[in-house]
């Protein structure tokens, strides 16, 4: 009685496998869908373009300037407010800072440090947090309890205090900032990932994998983590500006990167000190890059969240 209905699904058999592969239809993956939706999001796409320009600026910006970050122009020193204004003609595009150094190069260099801190800090947090959270969530039971209580303990320590202590005791260096920020940033990530894993691990496709005999670690890597990526990617883009803000705050307090190197936070800190002496540009230029970057990341994060939202699928 049912053979009639089954008919349309039967395909004529072809012997040659290679021949069959040729006519494979490329699947429309969830990622392809997400990409399409993301490209349709104007704010996010503008942000991507702006962010690319800022990254290019931080990498190659130095090459169009004849100055460097630490040479002091002694002629200007003491008269920066009048003589050190931004000028295209003398090559000091962003003017001078209060010590007579070329601000353009310092902004380029500061952008590089801030972006690096943001991206690398977020990356470390994401990798560590994802693996830690997915493991805790998937294994469950006592292992989960111990791992998550550990996270609770870390979270209960005021991290700014730890960070400042670390920088004071171990000395100010970029490495210490990475270590300090990385130590705390993965905690939130691991919690989010654990929660997601808990809901994933009871899904039938994971059960199917268990029934097939796939080992635990491979289930985590092949089935759990790829399905977490949507959440993780979104959270990572929101984590980058958070990292940049943290670093800026530390540098603003004067505990961040060491002279002659600088970062957006340090530049802003110097800028606020001199803005009352008619050197508003010293604040305006780093502030512009800082604000634009943070906004870009927020818009991209928003765009990704919309694009990856399963409800729209």
């Amino acid at each position, binding site marked *: 009685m049912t053979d009639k209905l089954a008919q349309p699904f039967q395909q004529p058999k072809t012997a040659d496998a290679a021949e*069959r592969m040729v006519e494979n*239809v490329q699947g429309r993956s969830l990622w392809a869908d997400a990409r399409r939706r993301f490209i349709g999001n104007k704010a996010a796409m503008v942000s991507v373009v702006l962010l690319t320009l800022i990254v290019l600026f931080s990498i190659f910006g130095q090459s169009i300037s004849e100055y460097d970050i630490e040479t002091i122009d002694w002629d200007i020193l003491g008269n920066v407010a009048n003589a050190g204004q931004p000028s295209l003609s003398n090559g000091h595009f962003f003017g001078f800072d209060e010590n007579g150094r070329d601000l353009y190069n310092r902004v380029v260099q500061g952008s590089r440090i801030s972006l690096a801190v943001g991206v690398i800090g977020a990356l470390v947090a994401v990798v560590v947090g994802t693996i830690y959270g997915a493991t805790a969530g998937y294994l469950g039971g006592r292992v989960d309890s111990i791992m998550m209580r550990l996270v609770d303990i870390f979270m209960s320590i005021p991290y700014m205090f730890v960070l400042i202590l670390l920088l004071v005791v171990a000395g100010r260096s970029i490495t210490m900032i990475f270590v300090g920020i990385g130590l705390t940033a993965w905690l939130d990530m691991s919690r989010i990932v654990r929660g997601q894993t808990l809901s994933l691990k009871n899904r039938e496709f994971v059960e199917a994998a268990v*029934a097939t005999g796939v080992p635990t670690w491979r289930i985590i890597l092949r089935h759990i983590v790829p399905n977490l990526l949507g959440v993780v990617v979104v959270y990572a883009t929101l984590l980058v500006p958070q990292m940049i803000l943290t670093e800026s705050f530390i540098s603003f307090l004067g505990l961040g990167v060491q002279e002659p190197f600088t970062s957006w936070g340090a530049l802003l800190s110097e800028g606020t000190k001199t803005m009352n002496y008619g050197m508003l540009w010293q604040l305006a230029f780093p502030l512009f890059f800082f604000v634009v970057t943070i906004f870009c990341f927020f818009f991209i994060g928003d765009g990704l969240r919309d694009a990856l939202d399963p409800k729209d699928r």
Partner: protein
Amino acid sequence: MALLSIRDLNVNFQSMDGTVEAVKSISLDIEPGKCLGVVGESGSGKSQTFMAAMGLLAPNARTSGSVMLEGQEILGRSQNELNQIRGRDMSMIFQDPLTALTPHMKIGIQMEEMLNLHSNIRGAEAKKLCLDWMNRVHIPEARARLGQYPHELSGGMRQRVMIAMAMLNQPKLLIADEPTTALDVTVQAEILDLMHTLKTEENTAIALITHDMGVVARMCDDVQVMRHGQFVEGGTTDQIFSNPQEAYTQELLSAMPRIDGDDVRPDISPDAGTVLDVTDVEVTFDVKKPGGLIPRTLPLRAVRGVSFDLAEGETLGIVGESGCGKSTLARAVLQLIDPTQGSVAWLGRDLVGLSKSSLKPHRKDLQIVFQDPLASLDPRMTISASIEEPLKEFQPGLTRTQRLEVVADMMERVGLSANMINRYPHELSGGQNQRVGIARAMINKPRLIICDEAVSALDVSIQAQILTLLKDLQAEFGMSMLFISHDLSVVRSISNRIMVLYLGRVVEMASRDQIFDDPKHPYTMSLISAVPVPDPKVEASRQRIRLPGELPSPMDPGAMWRFLPSRKPEEGSVEMPGMTQVAPGHVVQEHDSIEDIHRLTPQA
């Protein structure tokens, strides 16, 4: 004059992939006191037609045509005007009673809200009316229920509350969108009875949206068949069932496995060797009991001592209502859940207590097909990657091309075109995804496949295809099957033997024909009598066997004695009813006669 009259209704949805025409020039009429069945498979636009009539369409929908309720046009009205009509003149019952009630509001408050919106009945009078309706939909202890939250009620109870709520303002039209699909057969039968009473006593017009021809045969006066958003055929129920004109209607009717069908399923030859021997398996979960400072845990005995064996190439059907432990039993057999007690012997070797690594060689032979085809496939993997995964585990020597070759062969064997190899699960239909699930289970040529409600989520015609596929595969590869379902007609069409579970215990086990032709246990009888038959004449003459009371909670220690009230032991006893053999291969749990059960059960 017709109460609701729909003329040339079109519904389009604007989506990113272009315009989707969900409903194409549908016309229908419903008279007061009549029940119109709107039948069709998923995607036929049957729900959208009535969502349009209620003004509940998604914002990206465009409609044209006309929907007249008592001569008033519904389409194009503002939300405010629609709110006046909805709930007062027409109400809707949804498929899932779990999500249709607001979880944080007490039942009574939610019901009174309906009254507040559409009438000026307030206070004590409103409470009385709510209570009155709760009684009329046969909710036991109605007064206490009004103060409870939705999660404290069972699914069937919640659906009754939904109906009571929908009927509070005495609407002239009740739209029921698959009202019983999510419910067990016995509960379904009760809800249908209730709706029938409303129709005859209150003269309410009912639009019953369903895919189940059996429900239509039991309930409806007129039928309208829809497919792909278009009208296929309409007429009185007798006409449609006795003399369907369109090929599609005939297919729908014939595709549905019938509980009174005359198809045969040959017995397994008696010398086939036993492959699986399950003895006294028990599974106990710890359930947290709230209250007190330290939460206590209570044992929930999901499966309590089930024994059966399975011969090579045999299909054992496992039926029972939700919460009877059938899925838990399946997972205990596969060692996905550790049984608390008992043994599961596979080819003479006990699997219980084996370590993961010593269990792995057996995993090749023991496979499972799940209920929800989409959820059982990894959404981030192409379907070929999913099918391929067991191969990677058990035949690591194969190269990628060899594996793809095997996968492509299996895909064609289960009726999927091999050029879909790079597709993702969300691009395929439910039936296609279930074929993928079967291909994944079959790829290593296992000797036992457990189908856990494998066809329950599918449309009837797809259901028939999948059942045929499973039977064909079994004939070809000779594997044994455990076929778990709440749908007795489906189980009947595929099983050699059938086991009926009730609260984690076997109440009856026999060959397929013994169970359906000569059921002994009252529970089996009530299950069989509750299944609707897609034939209005048979439906009219069938007698329903009803059991007193609600399905008790598995936590209730007395629940086991529901069918043997004459010998119910003292509180705290661990004794359970025994099993007796009534015929060769036919075992039944001890029970009282139905009359005695009715007489001895205290009425709620």
